């Protein structure tokens, strides 16, 4: 009888294991609040976007996007834990629920949006793919790259764009694919490949990692559109809206001239747009399931979009990237957010 008993116990345990996976129906917002922190997927280290500094604090524009969401939910931009992911691992980590949101300079494409069970919640950086070459090769434009060996990071849209570009030009190339961007830089630095290709913002960052940054240059061509932004799981519209509107609030804040330094004064503003943004009027937060002052918490804790940009990738940082496409629509860029009303 002992045997049958243990079999029965085993069967019951099995049942609970198999049904447990179905029963986790709590919304992402609830589970984040319950945990007390936001679990955010970032890169394994990419200057300006997500990289730990010398004290081990994560910094970067993608990291700040996570912090802004944490500020909106908890009023505390530090209530985030980061999960470093390679390009290959990122979607599985999000699908499986290991992370609550992915903010890992990820390109928004139709296939990813429609077939991975994910939703892209906006664009926090408009990018495009470019080429980094050694100066001594004497190459001035991408059309001279026929036959070159090219280092790429695995699992990125860059792999596809590269093949498309060379096919359209009728040129051939040898793709050398590595798992991390560190390895692609090593491959490029040691001369295993002639060219390194990636998003232009990354090229600037990766170039700065070279022993002699001046020995390499970025070619003028941009061969693709790479809108990068935060991603959430499909099927939880409330959470999708929260992430989407946190980013919109940051962009609107810049447009309205609200920044982390003047946000306390702005609380007294009689501009109705600012009042709605900071939650002194209306119940915008409640509609999202957030505190009404979530806009204030974001701007106070992280800053508006422009601050976030300039702090991490702007002209005064080692990356030194101009605003370009990422300037507000009112200033010649395409950064445009729907109104908070």
């Amino acid at each position, binding site marked *: 009888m002992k045997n049958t008993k243990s*079999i029965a116990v085993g*069967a019951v345990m*099995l049942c609970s294991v*198999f049904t447990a*996976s*179905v029963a986790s129906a709590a919304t992402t917002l609830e589970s984040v609040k319950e945990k007390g922190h936001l679990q955010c997927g970032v890169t394994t280290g990419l200057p300006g976007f997500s990289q730990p500094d010398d004290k081990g604090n994560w910094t970067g524009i993608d990291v700040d996007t996570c912090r802004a969401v944490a500020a909106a939910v908890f009023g505390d931009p530090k209530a985030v834990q980061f999960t470093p992911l390679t*390009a*290959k691992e990122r*979607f*599985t980590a999000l*699908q499986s629920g290991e992370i609550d949101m992915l903010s890992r300079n990820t390109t928004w494409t139709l*296939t*990813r949006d429609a*077939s*991975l*069970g994910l939703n892209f919640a906006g664009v926090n950086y408009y990018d495009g793919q470019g080429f980094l070459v050694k100066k001594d*090769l004497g190459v001035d434009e991408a059309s001279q*790259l*026929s*036959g*070159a*060996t090219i280092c790429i990071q*695995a*699992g*990125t849209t860059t*792999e*596809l764009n*590269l*093949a*498309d570009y*060379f*096919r359209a030009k009728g040129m051939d*190339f*040898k*793709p*050398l*694919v*590595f*798992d991390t961007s560190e*390895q692609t830089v*090593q*491959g490029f630095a*040691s*001369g*295993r490949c*002639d060219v390194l290709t990636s998003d232009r913002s990354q090229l600037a960052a990766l170039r700065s990692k070279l022993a002699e940054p001046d020995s390499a240059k970025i070619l003028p061509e941009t061969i693709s559109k790479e809108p990068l932004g935060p991603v959430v*799981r*499909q*099927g939880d519209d409330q959470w999708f809206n929260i992430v989407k509107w946190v980013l919109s609030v940051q962009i609107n804040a810049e447009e309205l001239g609200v920044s982390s330094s003047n946000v306390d004064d702005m609380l007294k503003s009689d501009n109705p747009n600012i009042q709605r943004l900071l939650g002194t009027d209306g119940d915008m937060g409640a509609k999202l399931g957030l505190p009404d002052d979530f806009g204030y918490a974001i701007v106070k804790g992280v800053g508006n979009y422009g601050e976030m940009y300039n702090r991490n990738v702007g002209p005064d940082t080692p990356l030194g990237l101009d605003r370009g496409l990422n300037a507000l629509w009112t200033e010649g860029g395409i950064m445009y957010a729907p109104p908070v009303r």
Partner: protein
Amino acid sequence: MKNQNIDSRPAGPKPWYDPQVRSIFFQIVAISLVFWAGWTLVDNTLSNMESRGISTGFGFLGESAGFGIIMHLIPFDATMSYGRTFFVGLLNTLLVSAMGIVTATIIGFVVGVARLSTNWLVAKLALTYIEVIRNIPLLLQIFFWYFAVLRNLPSPRQTMDVGDWLFLNNRGLYMPEPFAQDGFGLVYGALTVAIIGTVALRRWSRKRQLETGEIFPVFKVGVGLIVGLPVIAYFLAGQPLQWEIPELQGFNFGGGFVIIPELAALWVALSLYTASFIAEIVRSGILSVSKGQTEASKALGLPANLTLRLVVIPQAMRVIIPPLTSQYLNLVKNSSLATAIGYPDLVAVFMGTTLNQTGQAVEVVAITMAVYLTISLLISLFMNIYNRAVAIKER
């Protein structure tokens, strides 16, 4: 009532006390539990993926891949399908595994025999090799060969070369590639004739040795035939081979035949690492043959090399084969470390890029696991057949 008493034989146990019935019952319960668990897993996965809007199914295998692969044994370009990337990756895995198994076996046997050499220096060198190589993690060794050795070769423009036809640089080892011209069929024909002739010769000499005891040097004559005949045919046909010599074209060498550094590093590391284990297996096999066997064959007047070949090795093989099989399996599975250095094997191409571009993790991982399982089972099967052939025949 009385009739019943007459009919009744000594009553067997009731069915639920019958040990046979009980054992069958519990086996059915166990099997249905296993099937139920498996079915629940699959069903749960599928319905959960559907409710989360993740595509399922194997339709993606027919879609065009849209990315390039640096090394492909079958024609491949970005317009071909994801299914094709599977075969490209699979063939690259099989290539490095096969190359590794051959070289690891050769090095392993040589080192294993050397380890038992009576020459002090040779034995100690073999010992050092085994202890150093097998105690360092394989991944480190792959990195060593790739980053420390092959990465430091000169660039294509400052290439090292041997007589303008063999080039070694950090893009690979470039060799001339032969192309068969008209008339090369004669060489193949000569090779076939030589092989058939050698087999026939071996049979004849066996028979003669059994009858008369005379020994015919089959090995030397066989090698002479197999090498000599095709060479003669080659010159008779007017040297019908054209060699494509690699040359520098722009960034890289073009033409010819190339071994890329990723393949070379993986091959060398896998071979040396596995060889150190095989060497110990060979040593244990040889030591398992009792000393009396060697002494007996010496007493019969057999020279040392024949003693090794005819008496020791055949008996040692019985001990060597089973653990050797597991080393081969290890080598195949270890070849998936390729992904760490960018060699496009099955894991790097199919479970890497293809998985990521399609997002169909469950399908891709299932296919890849099935492939490794199949390769391993096939190797086991062949080694078991061979093992049965050399095992002790009980008569």
